[in-house]
């Protein structure tokens, strides 16, 4: 990460907790750049996270108040923080399993309630920390530690899920397109409504190896293809496409 972002990190933190090739470092850098560009007061910001690799993006790295909670409950904790002290900026950073599986109910109700929370979901499409089990976001047919013949079920489209629950700002970014991602994060943080940014972030260690990617680089290339610009509405989307953008307008 660029030295200019070091001021947002705790001096005690000297190494990244992430595996080689993990996308979460890019997400961490993108989030800090968004914070830097907005001039967010870190002393009046609370970062709330659940359990999993993505929950370690803010905790303990960020030099701000951090609340590293239980598996799935980050959004519920964050709702209490925001409601009890509306002057604090509250940003949730957690993973797809945490936010959309065990915490799915809290996510949709927070979107419905529309408290001023920013929820950033690092989606690596698998349970990374526990060893690569199937997530609610694992694409159908893909291989995980609990679906060795391929995931038989359909994944959630998190953007549609959260938008359907009433979130006024919903975006999908990807670590292969960091400048767009920073833009979405800035809008989400600035929003005074409930805002949700799904961030596609590859997990080479657990996901890539099982699904026969030759290298982390190959995973990033494929993600780039799936996140391509799909502006021509007459063209059908390729299978597994992950259209990026803001989805808050019908």
């Amino acid at each position: 990460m660029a030295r200019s972002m070091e001021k947002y990190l705790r001096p005690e933190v000297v190494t990244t907790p992430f595996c080689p090739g993990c996308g979460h470092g890019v997400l961490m850098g993108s989030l800090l750049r968004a914070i830097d560009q907005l001039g967010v007061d870190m002393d009046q910001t609370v970062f709330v996270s659940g359990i999993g690799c993505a929950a370690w993006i803010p905790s303990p790295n960020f030099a701000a108040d951090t609340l590293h909670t239980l598996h799935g409950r980050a959004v519920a904790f964050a709702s209490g923080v925001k409601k009890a002290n509306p002057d604090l900026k509250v940003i949730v950073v957690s993973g797809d399993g945490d936010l959309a599986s065990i915490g799915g109910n809290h996510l949709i109700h927070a979107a419905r309630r529309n408290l001023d929370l920013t929820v950033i979901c690092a989606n690596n499409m698998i349970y990374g920390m526990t060893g690569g089990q199937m997530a609610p976001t694992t694409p159908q047919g893909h291989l995980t530690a609990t679906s060795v013949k391929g995931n038989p079920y359909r994944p959630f489209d998190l953007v549609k899920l959260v938008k359907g629950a009433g979130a006024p700002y919903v975006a999908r970014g990807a670590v292969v397109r960091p400048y767009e991602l920073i833009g979405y994060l800035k809008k989400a943080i600035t929003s005074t409504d409930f805002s949700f940014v799904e961030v596609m972030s590859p997990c080479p260690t657990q996901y890539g190896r099982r699904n026969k990617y030759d290298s982390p680089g190959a995973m990033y290339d494929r993600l780039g293809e799936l996140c391509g610009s799909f502006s021509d509405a007459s063209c059908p989307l390729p299978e597994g496409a992950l259209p990026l953008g803001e989805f808050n307008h019908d």
Partner: protein
Amino acid sequence: MPLSKVSNPVQAGRRYLSGNDAAAEGAIAAGCRFYGGYPITPSSEIMEYMSRELEERGGAFLQMEDEIASISAVVGASWTGAKAMTATSGPGVSLMQECLGYAAFTETPVVVVDVQRAGPCTGQATKVGSGDIMAVKWGSHGDYQVVALSPWSVQEMFSLTIEAFNLSERLRVPAFLLAEEATGHLRERVDMPETVEIYTRDYEPGQPPFGADDPAGIPSMPSFGDGEKLLVTGSTHDQWGFRKTEGPAFHDALVRRLSQKVLSRKNEICRHDGYHLDDAELVVVAYGFTARSALSAVRAARSAGIKAGLLRLITIWPFDNELISRVAEGAKGFLVPEMNLGQVDGLVRAYAGATPVRSLTQVNGSTISPAGILAALKEMS
């Protein structure tokens, strides 16, 4: 000790109130500024009261999507510096258990009013029970301590709610008001005081928020927004909150301190009442609503020439084992009537020494009558 006398913010004087309303007023008086909850019989009147009153008084109210979210929001709110609570009943307590362990482990003050109903499971939702005694102490995994107080009157639904807040804030532990449906829905006279004593959270800027050199120490508690760059985590942590998930010494020291900070202060925490204990041969150990019937039975037994007394436990957790051992020395027998299958009975037996203990259990969804307790005393005499 930052215990200060303040004007009671709710209407003082002689009043006629339900137990649940009195608990809500106790919370207001204690300085509660956040309520997060989910409706459940027979506690919902507390939530309804807080939804009407709390924001009028500068606090915040959130109806959450379930009990897990409720206690999570309460913990989050507590870290903003707000005194925070929820109210629930057995099924909700079961759902909250993981997060109650989080509160204990992160030393977050939270108050839970558990208006107990007839369990297990959905049981008889509108009927009384007292089956959560062990659940509130042992329900979350791992070793930790909580405070639990048992009110026997509407007056105590008010005063012990304040005490639960004071102990929770002072000790940085979850504190329960272990009420029962019969007390929650009871309506009776209350003498509301003009002033109340409330505890203000200790905060020394710059001090470590999760530990002290004292193996029974209670650390200073900052709030989000104080500029302390807090690291709150449910993983094993050092005194500044950095995760320490490898070193055995960190875990050992933390788990032991979290218990010792409560157990070493038992003498300051534990309260009880005694009636006719001075020369009592048969001692009824009772708590909550059952203690009302027990007192009536003890008086009737005295009239019948039986030297009976009542030991009313106000504090259930931490359990005052020394008290039981002390009373056991002068007693010929204990009788423990309970609206469960003998949860406090087992504790009394553990510390009664050679004094025989008789358990009187009733789990039919109704309160134990004085006649039943009197009959047992007559059999024992």
